[in-house]
């Protein structure tokens, strides 16, 4: 199998679902892994407040206990990214992308600010609407080709996957995670709680990079 990311260095099989590690997907995988480890090991940032009219500042230390739920959601998002970046099955990919959407909502859901919760709700609506073209695209791929395995789909000389399926998949991933496309996701960043909130941004970057490779390979 030759994908646009190179030849697979390693194939991990779970029955029908084969995870393939080409140089491209391996680098995405390592990036997700490193950031998940950073989230597990780091302590939350201290909130800084500048004293008005002088150079002084005071910090408020936040313990890990307060942000436990957010940390758990960040780790779950990281694990979902790990799965999404290496899987070789189209439907498995859509499931991981939907999981990324849900965990992104979960990361900011515990914040008390009304503005952030509003933004999280709007993002959640769009993420849920984004799962529709995702599942539709995967189903059309299965219906026209009889297989969902990317390795088998790339082995054919002429691509049998219709353009509409690829377009629906891209539309779905854009709905799940592309921050520039709508402001609600950007507004979610006003939530305090780095480094957990940064996982939102990293996850959307990773799934976008992966979906480009999937579309070109199929």
């Amino acid at each position, binding site marked *: 199998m030759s994908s646009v990311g190179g030849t697979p260095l390693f194939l991990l099989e779970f029955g029908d679902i084969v995870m393939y590690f080409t140089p491209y997907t391996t680098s995405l995988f390592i990036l997700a892994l490193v950031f998940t480890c950073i989230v597990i090991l780091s302590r939350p940032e201290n909130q800084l407040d500048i004293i008005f009219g002088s150079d002084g500042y005071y910090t408020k230390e936040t313990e890990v206990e307060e942000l436990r739920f957010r940390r758990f959601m960040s780790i779950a998002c990281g694990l979902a990214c790990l799965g999404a970046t290496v899987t070789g099955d189209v439907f498995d990919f859509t499931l991981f992308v939907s999981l990324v959407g849900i965990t992104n909502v979960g990361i900011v859901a515990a914040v008390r600010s009304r503005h952030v919760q509003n933004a999280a*709700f709007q993002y959640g609506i769009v993420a849920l609407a984004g799962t529709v073209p995702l599942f539709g695209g995967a189903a059309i791929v299965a219906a026209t080709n009889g297989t969902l395995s990317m390795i088998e789909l790339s082995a054919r000389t002429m691509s049998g996957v219709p353009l509409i399926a690829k377009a629906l998949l891209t539309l779905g991933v854009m709905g799940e995670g592309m921050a520039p496309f709508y402001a609600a996701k950007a507004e979610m960043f006003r939530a305090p709680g780095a480094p957990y909130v940064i996982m939102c941004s990293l996850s959307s970057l990773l799934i976008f990079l992966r979906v480009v490779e999937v579309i070109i390979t199929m």
Partner: protein
Amino acid sequence: MWEEYSIGLLGVLLCGVIAFVALAIEKDDLHRLLLIDLVEIPSLGIVALLATDLAEALILPGLVVGIAELLALSQIYLVKEGLKEQPEGRLHIEVIEYADAPLILSLFLVVYGIILSGFTGGGVAGLGVVFYFMSRGYKEDLSLLEAAAGISWAIWIVSFFVFMFLPQYWLLAVFGAGGGILLKVIAKMSLVGTMWGRSHE
């Protein structure tokens, strides 16, 4: 003219377009939430048109994802609007609150569900437990049930690994999987039932 699949696809996609147009012009948040439930249906419809066993295997995770998002979004909506503390209006129906009928019905459903076992059995038994909690309220601490459900879910996953890597022990894996998923679904559905029953004294 066209074949069955094309007509079905056209119908389901038209459905989706109608729902998305309504979602785009809607301004109220709760209406949007209800419309999200509507757009799940065309997405499952496209998968169901596949008409093979694979379609069933694909619909189940799709449903799980849909219900998980709906749960999360409804919770955020309640927190956002500040509605968490509102008491829910209840009807006072004597035959549900004081007579023996709900107990007998729930018992029957639970026993039938355990006999069926597997996912369907879990659903039926869970429905019985939900009905009991809804009618009578609950006073016990549910943490033991939750712990048992977690362990049984782990048993279910281990059974599937046995299916994949040690197929000679398939009978053990079948029992493990059926019993595990039964207990897990009962616990989850009883948790939903406690949302509606009268809360702890």
